[in-house]
């Protein structure tokens, strides 16, 4: 009889429906045909995993959560499974957190039918990509201080001026969603934000690479906006409602980031447990020693806890529950911490081999480390939980 080892990601502890189990198997089968080596090779050559992306799109896995007319029909919990299983197969695609997660969700929830018609089909089938520009040198976590400004133009539309950094994947996107401050103070008397679509070849757009230690396919960029024109139809939703609209994308972003972390952690733990079973020093496999086994077991427990909260956050988001934000924040924090612990212990288990690219764990480290500060820092999550879950005084 054929036997196969159960993948760690298949654990029945994490809630599954028949469809989600099939989805996970299908993603594992699709991504498994590429595998870690393919992904490392793409990253090394400074390219994008285009073939894998196209296959994911063709199978409908890039838009599982968008509305059915645009190629979806599932929930964000389905997309979370896709992201996690890709990473668990050794292909942590950061772009999954950006184009399908942040951008598609914001468009699906708030954009005009014309924008949805133009963009969402392609973003779901993988033929189009968007990236997201929010972070600025002088306004990180505090979105209220953004200085990139959208000024209405006498001929219609807007002109955008300012600069963003850490815009990931800017050079391979077909367009950017930009968060900008409205030049005119609205009826509330307070500054407001709006969301715009800026086409990649818009005049006045300058994109410069931002070198980082990340070993990811998607590079990050500083993007300068010098009187960049935005046509009237490219305002997303309502002018001045940018901040509220952002939340459609930010909770999924946290859930997606947590899924990416959880998947990487599963990949590392799978590798490490196999190695601990196979590697024999003196007379026993090293996994027989509690010094090796217990830290791996503890890391696995923390990953499973993070996965439970992540799936719960996705289900709450899909149900439209106001508790989704709290759960998504907790999931992101728990997943990033659990992933770093799992990677560290997986490397330790491998001894010197833990640093080899053939094992393929060490080069996940900086992406995992990034997830401790992005998309929201550990400290901001703790502030949020302290204030909103525990009722402690506001700290900022």
């Amino acid at each position, binding site marked *: *009889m*054929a*036997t*196969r*080892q*159960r993948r760690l990601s*298949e654990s029945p502890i994490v809630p599954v429906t*028949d*469809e989600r189990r*099939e*989805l996970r*198997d*299908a*993603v594992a*089968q*699709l991504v498994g045909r590429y595998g870690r080596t393919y992904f490392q090779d793409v990253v090394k050559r400074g390219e994008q995993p285009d073939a894998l992306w196209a296959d994911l799109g*063709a*199978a*409908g*896995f890039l*838009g*599982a959560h968008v509305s059915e007319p645009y190629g*979806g*029909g*599932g929930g964000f919990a*389905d997309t979370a499974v896709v992201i996690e299983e890709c990473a668990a197969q050794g292909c942590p695609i950061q772009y999954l957190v950006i184009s399908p997660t942040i951008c598609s969700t914001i468009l699906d929830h708030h954009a005009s039918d014309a924008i949805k018609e133009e963009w969402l089909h392609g973003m779901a089938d993988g033929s189009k990509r968007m990236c997201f520009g929010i972070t600025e040198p002088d306004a990180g976590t505090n979105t209220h201080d953004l200085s990139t400004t959208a000024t209405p133009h006498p001929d219609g539309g807007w002109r955008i001026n300012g600069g963003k950094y850490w815009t990931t994947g800017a050079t391979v996107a077909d367009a950017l969603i930009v968060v900008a401050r409205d030049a005119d103070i609205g009826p509330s008397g307070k500054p407001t934000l709006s969301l715009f679509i800026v086409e990649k070849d818009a005049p006045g757009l300058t994109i410069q690479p931002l070198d980082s230690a990340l070993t990811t396919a998607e590079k990050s960029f500083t993007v300068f906006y010098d009187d960049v024109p935005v046509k009237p139809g490219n305002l997303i939703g309502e002018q001045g409602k940018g901040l509220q609209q952002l939340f459609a994308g930010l909770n999924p972003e946290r859930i997606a980031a947590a899924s990416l972390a959880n998947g990487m952690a599963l990949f590392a733990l799978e590798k490490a447990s196999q190695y601990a079973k196979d590697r024999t020093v003196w007379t026993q496999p090293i996994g027989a020693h509690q010094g090796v086994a217990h830290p791996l077991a503890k890391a696995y427990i923390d990953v499973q806890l993070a996965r439970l909260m992540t799936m719960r956050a996705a289900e709450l988001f899909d149900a439209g529950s106001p508790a989704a934000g709290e759960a998504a924040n907790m999931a992101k924090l728990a997943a990033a911490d659990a992933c770093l612990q799992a990677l560290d212990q997986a490397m330790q288990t491998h001894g010197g081999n833990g640093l080899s690219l053939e094992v393929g764990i060490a080069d996940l480290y900086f992406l995992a480390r990034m997830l401790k500060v992005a998309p929201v820092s550990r400290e901001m999550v703790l502030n949020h939980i302290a204030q909103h879950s525990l009722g402690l005084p506001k700290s900022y």
Partner: protein
Amino acid sequence: MTKIVVLVKEVPDAAVQKQVDSSTGRLDRSGEKTLNPFDTHAIEAALQLKESGALDVDEVVAVTVGPSSAVKALHKAVSLGADRSIHLTDDALVGSDVVGTGYALAELIKRESPDLVLAGQQSDDGQSYAVGAAVAEYLGWPGLTQVIKLDVDGQTLTCERQAEYGYDTVKVTLPAVISVGDAINEPRYPSLKAIMGAKKKPLESLSLGDAEIDASKVGEAGRKAVWTGSQEPPAKAAGELIEDEDTAETVEKIVAWLDDRKLI
């Protein structure tokens, strides 16, 4: 217009440790179950015939005999591309042997009168490799096993069979029952739409009475194979380790060892 029936089965997941229940002599099929992986090659073969236009296929129907849980295997079969499915389920079927299963499947197939029946090479649990042949016998149709290449010319199929000694090329005229080897293709994965829509495709559930199948020929009542006992496979004798201290001497030892067994 051509109709293809694909025979499928629900089996224990390959990650589940399998055991024979000594009180019944049957395989313990508790635990996680899945569509028999070998059947996905038969589904893929049917879809390739349909999509390539090699046959003018208007319908691919997945058929199974099994307990109520087997609907999941049918959902998987339609998510991979079958158009609808048929589930024969009845308490009287419990304990059917290969011949009984072959008879029941043949009766279901007669109701559909397809032009071609495709099956996987084996089930991942029972592993008789023989259900396809039993079905062909009951239908009185040509039956081929281990087919790894199918070429269509009108109503004639030119099939390449994988055999111990090489390949047979066999021509058959439809209707026929063909068990495909797992080397025939690489099965696809279902798309999101197919996964979400699987439960919406028509699934016909039949009892023995509904399908007018003779209950005395299936299950415990009809079985001809009797289980008498089981034993652990004999343990392999420990191999001989030759430490390489002096290479010339090691080579001599290996040559002597092979010579003793008349291998050189």
